[in-house]
């Protein structure tokens, strides 16, 4: 890592610290995985999916 990048990162961290605890929290709407894993998460959902697939 170059000195200039080290400084850039250190400056960014210092800027963040100055925020204190008043900063923005990550939105709960941010996905924490592929959109697909949310479709089938439980055996019941898998069964419902297979049922709809077979009746298609």
């Amino acid at each position, binding site marked *: 890592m170059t000195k200039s990048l080290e400084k850039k990162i250190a400056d960014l*961290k210092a*800027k*963040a610290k100055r925020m*204190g605890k008043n*900063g923005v*929290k990550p939105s709960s709407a941010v996905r*924490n995985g592929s959109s697909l*894993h949310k479709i089938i998460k439980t055996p019941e959902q898998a069964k419902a999916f297979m049922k709809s697939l077979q009746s*298609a």
Partner: protein
Amino acid sequence: MAVAVKLDFDNTYEIDPLSDDLRVSSFTSELQDGSPAPLRVEISSEPHALLPSVFNLAFGPTNAKGEIDDRAEIAHKDYSKVFSSILLAGLTYLTDHPDQYLGIDGSNNARAYLYYRFLQRNFGYLDHFFEMYGLKYYVRISRFGKNQYDNPFDFDDVIPMTDRISIGMVIRSNLMYN
């Protein structure tokens, strides 16, 4: 969107942290028509549903509710600068959280493939800063036709472990890591 992105942490927009833990930050990109576009970078506070040390990194403009719209289509003037800024925010976070990984997943297959192309194009540069892995953690439905309903899942396309990405690795867009 341009593919010829050249990542360079010396060529970034001014990043404004919005939280003291660096999970939320923003910067303003310039669009092709010259207008400014505020963008937000967010690192999820919850780990990935299936990967306990992976935290999703999302980016994009925010909607009226203040949530990131990761499906927005924006014509940036300098894509290299935009993606360098996003990754610098991620790199800064990781220097404080060396035990964590950031997950970057395109909002659709085309974007995931584009990000992989960016990664490969800049592999030599990124390899100095990141350990990069790919992962396939769900089963694709990729069989069509007569046998589709007998066994629609392509279990051969699942790698149930992380796969260290190396330079020049070619993956078809429809079989991209997810």
